[in-house]
């Protein structure tokens, strides 16, 4: 890992309009990604973990500019992605790649493995055309695909092998950043380890940076250098792997850790069991979005959304429990309509 920062995400927002009023103005918005910031160094892996519907995939797609964003900024390799003109976007597309969860639907059925992997290489003229075949075979070798698969078709392969083809396709254009969106979730347990090892080897060999998205905390723990925990569109905690696991600050992170069943029958954990369901992202609770399930909820949590701030060096958290830090970070009230404040406090009283 070098010290060069390859990706900087600043206050990224992506809202989806659910309903429009008569004049076409948004009446109801779903804040799929709501103010997310992090940086990523060359050769580093950031793991993004969170439960279903928390906006992991939208975040990944927004970073790659696969959908337009509502606010914020993505700086890739020193350039603001939104400012890059369309003609240069193609180059950017090769430098940022994505690997999807489902290796079954993400490969075109009528193209041979060689064509699938070589297509983008040809389009973007990564290598001279006469070297194409040798180049593709080389990439296939790196991804553990045998040369004679070159002329075969995707349906002849098992899930694990297809995921290898997807990986080879993504890496053939020499990207710098790869978003891995649940790359092993659809695979059998005994195949998962294979793919994880492959991704790790390739990262070290090709100096790749990964945004590794998963709902499986143990997979995230294994691959990541730093980890961001998401809940309903927000990052609630961001820290290096060791900081996060040794000293989880957010009550949500702590619950998440304790919820993972350990494959060890003698390890009896004191488990924090949450009450209640994950609220719908279209209708998140006021104040801290986690307050209706949080075991440590305080009065203030119901009224004011906690800021995302550096509670310890390089350890960011969004939680009122670390209140004293507000002295260092002067607090500005967030946009909670006064009426809700009033109603809520009256109800409590």
């Amino acid at each position, binding site marked *: 890992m070098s010290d060069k920062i390859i990706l900087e995400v600043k206050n990224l927002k992506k809202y989806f309009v659910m309903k429009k009023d008569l004049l076409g103005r948004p009446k109801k918005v779903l804040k799929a990604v709501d103010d997310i910031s992090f940086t990523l160094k060359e050769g580093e892996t950031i793991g993004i973990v969170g439960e279903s519907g928390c906006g992991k995939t939208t975040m990944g797609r927004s970073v790659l500019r696969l959908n337009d964003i509502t606010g914020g900024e993505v700086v890739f390799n020193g350039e603001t992605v939104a400012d890059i003109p369309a003609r240069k976007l193609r180059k950017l597309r090769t430098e940022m790649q994505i690997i999807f969860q489902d290796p079954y639907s993400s490969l075109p059925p009528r193209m041979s493995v060689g064509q699938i992997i070589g297509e983008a290489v040809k389009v973007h003229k990564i290598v001279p055309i006469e070297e194409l075949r040798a180049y593709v075979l080389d990439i296939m070798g790196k991804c*553990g695909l045998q040369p004679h698969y070159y002329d075969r078709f995707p349906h002849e392969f098992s899930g694990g092998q297809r995921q290898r083809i997807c990986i080879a396709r993504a890496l053939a254009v020499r990207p710098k950043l790869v978003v891995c969106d649940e790359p092993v979730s659809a695979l059998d347990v005994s195949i998962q380890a294979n793919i994880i*090892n492959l991704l*790790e080897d390739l990262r070290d060999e090709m100096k790749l940076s990964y945004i590794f998205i998963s709902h499986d905390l143990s997979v995230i723990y294994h691959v990541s250098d730093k980890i961001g925990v998401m809940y309903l569109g927000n990052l609630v905690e961001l820290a290096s792997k060791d900081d996060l696991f040794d000293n989880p600050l957010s009550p949500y992170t702590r619950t998440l850790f304790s919820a993972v069943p350990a494959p060890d029958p003698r390890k009896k954990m004191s488990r924090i069991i949450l009450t209640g369901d994950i609220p719908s992202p279209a209708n998140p609770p006021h104040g801290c979005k986690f307050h209706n399930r949080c075991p440590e909820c305080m009065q203030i949590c119901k009224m004011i959304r906690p800021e995302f701030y550096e509670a310890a060096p390089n350890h960011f958290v969004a939680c009122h429990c670390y209140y004293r830090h507000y002295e260092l970070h002067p607090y500005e009230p967030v946009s909670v309509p006064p009426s809700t404040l009033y109603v809520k406090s009256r109800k409590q009283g």
Partner: protein
Amino acid sequence: MKEKLQNAAAFIRKRAIRFGKAVKKFFTDIFGSDSGYISRKTEKEISDYNRKEIKRLEKEKRRKLSPEDYRTEMQNPDNIAEFDDLKTYFYTDRGTVKAVDGVSFSIPKGVTVGIVGESGCGKSVTAMSLMRLIQGPLGQITGGEIRFAGRDGYTYDMVKIPTKDLYRIRGKEIAMIFQEPMTSLNPVFTIGNQIDEVLITHLDMNKHEARKRSIELLTQVGIPMPEQICDRYPHELSGGMRQRVMITIALACQPRLIIADEPTTALDVTIQAQILDLLRRIKTQFDGSIMLITHDLGVIAEMAEFVVLMYAGKIIETGTVDEIFYNPLHPYTIGLQRSKPVIDSGKERLYSIPGNVPNPINMPPYCYFYDRCRFRTPECKKGYPPFVQLTETHGTACWLHQRSADADYENAGTFTTDAATTDTVNTNTANMPNGGENF
């Protein structure tokens, strides 16, 4: 002249071979790999065979049985259910899928038995066979016995049990919870109606009693405001809530056995923790057994007392949860445990099992794990390994342990299982013939 003829013959032969190859390539291109393509002739053979077999089995099923035929005796009165050499096959167009092929294990009273294995290994089919929910005519139980100790004191063979008795047991004495509750809840009835319905049909309650009991049950499984939930439709609830409703329905008749097939796989971890906690809690309440099917070793470690490991339709290892996790015998069990990333384990490379689960139609005549096994010896090809029982609870189907069991028999008392297996696993797959690549 003769030479010319010979030349011509050689030329024609060469051409013919090349043509044959081209034809073969053509078919390979269209139908995928060589093994995927089935010729007309084989296809016909398969369908003739299927028709004959299905006809025979269906006829068998229709035979009128007397109670002596379907009532049996438990081998051990402490068990609630015993699977004995169960065989469930699917007669598909591509050949016979032996989804469950000679499975034997038992579920003791008041105990949670975990069934673990990867997708397609026959976990669900085993459970469905007990419930007699195998989709005919393609799916057939072709052999074996499933003994179930009914509440009336008789032991029934669930394979032969007549429909009348089956309906009495299914849903009432054996209840089932599925991975996706939406498929088993009726979308057009309210939650309340569906629970009432079960109580009314199975327990002869009247409407009023049923509703009262429904609300009681919903409270028990931790549903807030049960009166209101009763009037909701399934699609209005979240996945976790629906699973709670399924558990309520399962509990309604106080079953003796609950089959939970991947009950938490579709749920988020925090919700999974809630449901697992609930399952544990209700088990102490209803004092029955749970057959828990899952692919997640973490869930098993937490919930189960006994574990059954399946691979490609067969049981490869059984034991108490401690035996399986601390002294795994079968190379597949060991590999599975080592390949799972674990929090707090430091950053070591994951062990990966090379290869794939073999094609379910053409299983080899030797150990099914052979192609992926680190510990195989030429001896392993001599046949499918018999199941050896090493302790009262712990057993496995692997030639490795067959040998040590034999040795043990000869020089009694010197038997060690773990030394040979667990210590050497963590090296990589480089010494596999294919470098661990081909999966």
